[in-house]
């Protein structure tokens, strides 16, 4: 190790410290953005240092640097454009795609270092083990993340996909990957064997995520995030780069803890999720095989009915769900709430942690519509408030207030829910009787005290607001 390498290592330690400080600040909403910027600063330090180091110590060819420049430009443009234009509802799939490319990049780095090293007769185990592990984990996360993104986007069905023998094929792929990997460790460097590891791992990643229900996809994305971190750390071992080792291990561990916390918030065990089987299609994308609309037993309301009910009420709780996000109706709901409040009605929002399509989704949207923090009740407070609530106004939510969660044996069993059915009366705004993410029907909608107002959330809320205005000024 030369003095120059020593200095580079120390700078990497500084960059790592910035990553840690950044993650630390991301714990609290008010400092989170600053934290992300600090983390980006650490990244800039790490990247610039590596460029200087690689240029001076290895030199490289003009072609190599040119190819890199083109590649990085293409990737950067793709990444930035996607990040800028993505709809807030589609963030989980984008994160998943970034996972996939990260894992892919780590695998490519391992391959490259393997190719560069094949000149020597045999690699030492301290290099070959991380290379094999990197290819293995990187490929699994590459394939798995792409499938997860497809499921979240609705390109691939959110239903758990299985076919006869899938489980066996999966075990087979794992065995081939591990077997070829071990074989590659001994004997002379052999590119073909590494390719076998690659392909088998891709198949394994694919088969691992396919049977996972769409509703569980965010947890899987977080898990694959941790995997990518580990793959990157392995790449660091392979090319002896401490920045990669530290950052990769950091994300690997943090991602694992985050996964456990997310699973807990959604009341799932990570083990059960990975073994697959829960959850089904997203009805909102493709109008998947949803039950035919059976409107007997259902009390339908008009905008005027809803307006009168709301204006008469003393305590109103609004339950926002994915439909509110899909219809971009956050401003309309905020306006209605403001109007009611100005007429003396007590209006609050009941926010479920997994309402919508990402954790904290509703908080993000309502914050965008300038809803004050005090009006947003989190799960426990909200459930205390329902007992004393005159009207629960459910806007595009479904699973998060499905009373069937309290009985075992269905797709939402055991999920903590909002007790909208404890309110004196319930009004539901949605477009049809189609189910939500979990793909099951909701007994709340056929409850005698529930009235259904079939409309798009944005339009329906605007109509109600108009009606309330007429009613209170009349």
């Amino acid at each position: 190790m030369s003095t120059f390498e020593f200095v580079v290592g120390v700078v990497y330690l500084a960059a790592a410290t910035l990553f840690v400080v950044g993650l630390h600040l991301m714990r609290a909403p008010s400092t989170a953005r600053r934290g992300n910027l600090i983390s980006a600063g650490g990244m800039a330090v790490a990247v610039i240092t590596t460029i200087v180091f690689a240029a001076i110590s290895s030199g490289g060819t003009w072609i190599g640097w040119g190819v890199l420049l083109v590649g990085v430009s293409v990737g950067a443009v793709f990444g930035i454009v996607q990040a800028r234009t993505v709809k807030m509802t589609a963030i989980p799939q984008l994160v998943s795609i970034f996972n996939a490319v990260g894992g892919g990049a780590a695998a490519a780095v391992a391959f490259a270092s393997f190719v560069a090293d094949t000149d020597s007769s045999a690699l030492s185990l301290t290099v070959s083990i991380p290379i094999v592990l990197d290819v293995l984990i990187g490929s699994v996360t590459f394939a798995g993340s792409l499938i997860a993104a497809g499921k979240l986007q609705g390109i691939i069905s959110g239903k758990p996909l299985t076919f006869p023998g899938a489980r066996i094929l999966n075990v087979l792929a794992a065995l081939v990957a591990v077997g070829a990997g071990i074989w590659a460790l001994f004997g002379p460097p052999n590119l073909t064997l590494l390719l076998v590891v690659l392909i088998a791992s891709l198949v394994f990643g694919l088969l691992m995520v396919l049977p996972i229900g769409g509703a569980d996809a965010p947890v899987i994305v977080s898990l694959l995030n941790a995997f990518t971190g580990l793959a990157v750390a392995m790449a660091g071992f392979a090319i002896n780069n401490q920045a990669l080792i530290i950052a990769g291990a950091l994300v690997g561990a943090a991602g694992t803890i985050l996964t456990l916390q997310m699973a807990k918030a959604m009341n799932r065990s990570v083990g059960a999720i990975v073994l697959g089987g829960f959850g089904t299609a997203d009805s909102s994308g493709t109008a998947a095989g949803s039950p035919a609309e059976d409107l007997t037993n259902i009390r339908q309301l008009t905008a005027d009915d809803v307006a009168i009910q709301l204006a008469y009420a003393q305590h109103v709780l609004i339950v926002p769900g994915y439909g509110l996000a899909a219809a971009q109706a956050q401003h309309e709901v905020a306006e209605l709430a403001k109007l009611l409040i100005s007429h003396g009605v007590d209006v609050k929002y009941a926010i479920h942690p997994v309402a919508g399509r990402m954790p904290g989704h509703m908080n993000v949207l309502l914050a965008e519509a300038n809803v004050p923090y005090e009006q947003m009740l989190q799960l426990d407070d909200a459930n205390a408030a329902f007992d004393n609530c005159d009207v629960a106004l459910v806007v595009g939510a479904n699973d998060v207030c499905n009373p069937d969660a309290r009985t075992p044996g269905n797709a939402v069993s055991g999920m903590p829910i909002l007790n909208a059915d404890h309110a004196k009366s319930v009004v539901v705004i949605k477009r049809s009787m189609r189910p939500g993410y979990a793909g099951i029907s909701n007994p709340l909608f056929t409850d005698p005290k529930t009235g259904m107002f079939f409309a798009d959330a944005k339009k329906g809320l605007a109509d109600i607001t108009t009606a309330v205005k007429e009613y209170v000024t009349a």
Partner: protein
Amino acid sequence: MIEQLFSNLAIFVLSLLVGVEVISKIPSTLHTPMMSGANAIHGVVIAGAIVTAALADSPTGYVLTFIAGVLAAANVFGGYVVTDRMLQMFSKPNATPVNTDTKDPS
């Protein structure tokens, strides 16, 4: 060689410990931005792509450099930008929907 391995191993283990400790109980409101922020950090694999470029001297090497460059750049640039976009919404004055130990939001 074995010095290097021990050094890297120690770094790896201690970084794992840091990772576990830095994510203590966080509000579910921040799960997505946090995941996305961690995601951006593993974009450091772009440093690996740079090293790969410096070592490449064969067509295979160039192809792998290109692949690593595209993928890593997408991860790192996209990751930070999308995280920032998301967090922007949280840092609006009235958008602190959890009462954790918030530092001064200066």
